[in-house]
């Protein structure tokens, strides 16, 4: 402690423990004692507070442990088995997969040939297999046409993942455009230098349709 008296009364020890608790919880890396001390308000004693905090967490599901010269919260070693899901690695779906998935969602039930016609390229076996494995698509009924081709539909797992109530809730093309998701083809700008934006038109049409619905 310095010779100069602190401007404000130092926080109580339980309050200091709260502060350390929040800092250690929110930090992405273990924090050295010196940094904890530096970040606490004047008049605090990081070492004492840290010791109190460590004892408070003894035997809990989370424990306060030293990592080299620094401190961090860690899951109690005996509970690691509960955290298996946290270790899953996430990876973005490939463009081919997401496109195929979107076609199945919008056009279901749809055959492989139809998917290929819409995408304009062949659909690799791996792509469909991946979607089946993810449990986002499944086989639907066979089409009653020559060859009786199998169709694909989306699953409940798909709806759950994308937060949809039903595949019918997927926004239509007009709505995609209105939301600015179809913006690579600007409509001819008839409004001149005004504030009219391409796409506004669609919005207007929507609005009128809807108002017409009201009565």
């Amino acid at each position: 402690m310095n010779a100069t008296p602190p401007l404000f009364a130092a926080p109580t020890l339980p309050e200091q423990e709260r502060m350390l608790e929040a800092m250690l919880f929110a930090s992405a890396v273990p924090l050295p004692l010196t940094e904890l001390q530096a970040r606490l308000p004047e008049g605090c004693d990081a070492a004492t507070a840290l010791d109190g905090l460590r004892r408070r967490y003894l035997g809990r599901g989370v424990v306060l442990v030293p990592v080299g010269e620094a401190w961090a919260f860690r899951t109690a070693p005996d509970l690691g088995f509960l955290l298996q899901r946290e270790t899953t690695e996430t990876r973005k779906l490939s463009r081919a997969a997401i496109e195929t998935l979107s076609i199945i969602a919008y056009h279901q039930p749809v055959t492989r040939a139809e998917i290929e016609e819409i995408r304009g390229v062949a659909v690799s076996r791996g792509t469909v297999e991946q979607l089946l494995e993810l449990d986002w698509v499944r086989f639907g009924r066979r089409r009653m046409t020559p060859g009786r081709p199998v169709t694909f539909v989306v699953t409940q797992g798909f709806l759950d993942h994308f937060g949809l109530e039903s595949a019918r809730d997927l926004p239509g093309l007009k709505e995609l455009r209105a939301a600015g998701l179809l913006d690579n083809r600007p409509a001819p700008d008839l409004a001149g230098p005004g504030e009219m934006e391409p796409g506004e038109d669609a919005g207007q049409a929507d609005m009128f349709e809807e108002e017409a619905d009201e009565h």
Partner: protein
Amino acid sequence: MPDADFETDTPSVADRLAGEALIVDVDGFEGPLDLLLALSRSQRVDLRRISVLALAEQYLAFVDQAKALRIELAADYLVMAAWLAFLKSRLLLPPDPSDSGPSAEDMAAHLAFQLERLAAMREAAARLMARARLGQDFFARGEVEGPALIRRLRYTATLLDLMQAYARIRTRDEFRPFSYDRQNIWTMEQALERMRGLIGFAGEWTDLASFLPEGWRADAARRRSATAATFAAVLELARQGHCELRQSETFAPLSIRHRS
């Protein structure tokens, strides 16, 4: 040059300043309703007791001023001005008993409601943004942990990814060069080739319809296409002097005959 402009301006300095303030304000407003809400603030009363008549007059004066200063107003400002002028006249005149539409009071009340609702949502938005927020005022666990041994690959995609993918495909479709289904189209080239071979057999006047190819007579769409193409082909043959055409009256069957 600027001096000369200045000399010709008759309005007072105060008018000019007001006009300049107006320019800035028009840019700052998000449409007529926003402007009306701002104007209504000058009445300094609860929005539920606002005088819509006074508000309409203020708005119209605003628009007139903008016009006088040759400020370009977006169309929706002018639409609102026209509507308010209409409402104003309805509010001032005694009600017309033959008019079955909503009363002027109803219309005024709805406008007041819209203004109050917009003001309320602005207020709500401000309160929402003033809340303690994640990542600014309170924080999530900084170090997500778990045993590194068990690794499962999980593919993710958001609804936005899905929709963007679909939009990409569909937009590409819209770009596809224009072509149409030729399955049911009998082209003029086909008809000409066929008629060149057949015209020699038409010594007597023969109905054009009897020259339509097999399989192009029953289905209406195919028959239409084949008739049009055959007719065009026959016109071409007549122009070249290979045949003659006749029709007894409008819409009567067309007949053709070989011309030697």
